C-alpha cells in the first residue's frame, strides 16, 4: 500500500487527478447480461495510474505486485471470503479458482473486474460503491494469485 498510497496522495495534492471519464480503450460490460457497464469513477474517487492503465490496456497492473497483493488479501478477507472461502474454492458463492468458471470471461482481467465492479447474479451484487476501482484491481490481483494454475 505504502508506495502506491504515497503516490496517490502526491497526485491528489498536486490536483492532477480530477475524476471524470477515462480513456475508454476497453469496452466493459456486465459479466452476465452483456449490457454496457459505465465505469466512470465516483465523483470523490481518486483515479490511480493503475486504474488509468487498466482502462487503456485491459491488463491489471497489480498482478504479481507483492504490495498490491497484500492489500488485495485484506480486501478479500473483508468482502469476499465468507462466500467464496479463504482459498477461493467457493461455498455460498462459486469457486474463483476453477477449474471451471461460470463466466469464462471472468478468467480475464477485464472479466474479473466486470464481475466485481458491476456485479453478476443473485447475491453477487456490484461492489462499485464499496470499493474504489483501484481496490477492485488489487483484490482481483489477489484472486488471480489464488488460482493454482496462475491463470
Amino acid at each position, binding site marked *: 500500500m505504502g508506495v502506491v498510497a504515497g503516490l496517490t496522495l502526491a497526485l491528489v495534492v498536486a490536483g492532477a487527478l480530477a475524476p471524470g471519464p477515462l480513456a475508454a480503450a476497453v469496452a466493459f460490460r*456486465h459479466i*452476465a*447480461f452483456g*449490457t454496457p457497464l459505465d465505469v466512470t469513477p465516483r465523483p470523490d474517487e481518486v483515479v490511480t495510474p493503475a486504474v488509468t492503465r487498466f482502462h487503456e490496456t485491459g491488463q491489471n497492473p497489480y498482478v504479481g505486485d507483492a504490495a498490491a497483493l497484500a492489500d488485495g488479501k485484506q480486501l478479500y478477507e473483508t*468482502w469476499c471470503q*465468507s*462466500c467464496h472461502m479463504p482459498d477461493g*474454492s*467457493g*461455498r*455460498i*458463492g*462459486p*469457486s474463483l479458482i476453477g477449474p*471451471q*468458471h*461460470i463466466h469464462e470471461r471472468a478468467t480475464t482481467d477485464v472479466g474479473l473486474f466486470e464481475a466485481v465492479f458491476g*456485479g*453478476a*447474479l*443473485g*447475491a*453477487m*451484487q456490484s461492489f462499485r*460503491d464499496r470499493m474504489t476501482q483501484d481496490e477492485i484491481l488489487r483484490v482481483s490481483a489477489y484472486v488471480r494469485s489464488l488460482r493454482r494454475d496462475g491463470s
Partner: protein
Amino acid sequence: MKRGTVWVTSLLGAGLVATAIAVSAQTVPTARDQVARPGGQVAGLPPLALVKVADGFNDPVGVTSANDGSGRIFVVERVGRIKVVTKDGRVLPEPFLDLTKTNPLGSEVQTGFVEQGLWSVAFHPKFKENGHIFVHYSSLPFNGASIVARYTVDRASPDRITTEQANKTVKVIMNIPQPWYNHYGGTIAFGPDGFLYVGKGDGGWEGDLLDAGQRLDLLLGKMLRIDVDVPDTEQYRVPTSNPMARAMQDRMMSLFGVTEQGFASIRQGRPEIWAYGLRNPYMFHFDRRSGDLFIADVGQNHWEEINYQPASSKGGENYGWRHNQASHCHPLTGPTENCPVVGVLPVAEYPHQEPYPGAPKLTQGFGCSAQGLGVANYGGMSKVYLVGDWCSGRLWAVGWDGSRWQLQESLQTNLQFTAGGLDEDGFVLAVNCNCFYLDDKGAMQNPPGALWRVLPQSQVPAGAQTAPVVRP
C-alpha cells in the same frame, strides 16, 4: 361459521381440480429417485419475466395481499414496517404498521442479524369484517424470541394502523424463545381450514444442535397450526384435529398390557405441531385453488428442498431434518450415501455449487437458499410452485407432469430473492433485498429492494420495467 364457509369454497375448488386431473393426482415421492432435480420440464411453464411493481423498500422480506377487494399489496420491511402499495402501484408514504414506533423505549423488533426482523403479515380470512392482521417477528425486548401478534385495523383508517391504534389493539398470540440468531422460519399464513400456520426454524447455529427438527417437545423445527379465533382471554387454541392434539392425554402411565406397537405410538408431542423435521421453513404457500401446501425448507451446506402436502393431509409429516437434508444424508460426507430416508421425502431439491463435500463444482443449476414465492395458476401454469434462490438469483418452477414431479430453472437474475406471495388476482409477487449476509449494513442502511410481479413474457405490459435475466 367462518370455517364452514371456507371449506365450501375449498371443497368446490378441490372437486374441480380432481375432475381435471383425475388420472394424475399428485403423490409424494416414496423413493429418492422420484424427487425432482434441476434439468426437468414443468408442463405449461411459459418464459417468465419479472415486472417491477414498485421499489424503494428497506430490506423487503415478505409480501402478501389482504384479499379484501382493495387490490392493495403489503410489503414487509425487515426493520419492522409494513408498506402499502396501492392498486395503481403507488407506495404510500406512511406505513400500514410501524413496530419501530410502538414501544417508547425503542423498536419492538430485533434486526441485529440479517435473519432477524419482521418477516410476515397474514390477514385474517374474515379481515374485511374483523380487521385482524397477524405478524411474526423477532423481538428486541424479548431478546430475540419470535412473537406472533395480532393487530386490528380501524375502519376509519384502512391504510394505517396508528401507533395508538396498534397499542390499543395488540394481542400476543405466541412468544417462542430463540436459542441462536438464525433459522427462525418466518412465514405465517392461514390455511384453507381457517387455522394459522406458523413456520418455525430449528433455532439456529448449524447441524440442529438441539435436534429440534425431531424433538416433539419443542416448537422449533416445525410447522405449527393454531386456532386464533378464540376469546381475547386466551392466546390461542389447539385444533382438536392436530396430529398430536391428544398425545398428552396418555396421562395414566401404564407398563403392562401394552403391545410393542402401542408403546412405539406413544408420542408426547407439543399439540401445536402440524409437521416436523424442518430446518428453516422461511416461506411456505397454500395453493388458493386446491388448498395444497408447498414448503420451501432452506438447507444447510449442500441441498435445498421443496416439500408438498396435499390438502387432504392430516398432518404429522416428518420431513427428516436433521437426519436428512432434502433426500440426502445429514451429515453429508461424500458422494456415496448410505442412510435411511427419515419420514417424508421432498418433491423437489436443488444443490449448492458443491452437491457434496469435495464434489466437482457445478457451473449451472445450483443455488443456496430456497425462498418460495407462490403457487402459480396462470399463463399455462397449473399448480406450479415458483421458488427464488437468495444467492444465485435463479427462479425455479416445481410442478407435477402427470406421473412425477419436475424442477425446471426458468431464468436467472441479479436479484436476491427473499420472499413472495400472491396479489388479489393470483399473480405471484416477489421481493428482493440487497441484504446478503456479508453485505448487510443494517435494516435501514442497505440499498433498497423492490417488488416484482412474475408474468409470462408475452403478458409484460408495454413500457414496463423488467429485471435483467439470463435464460438457461
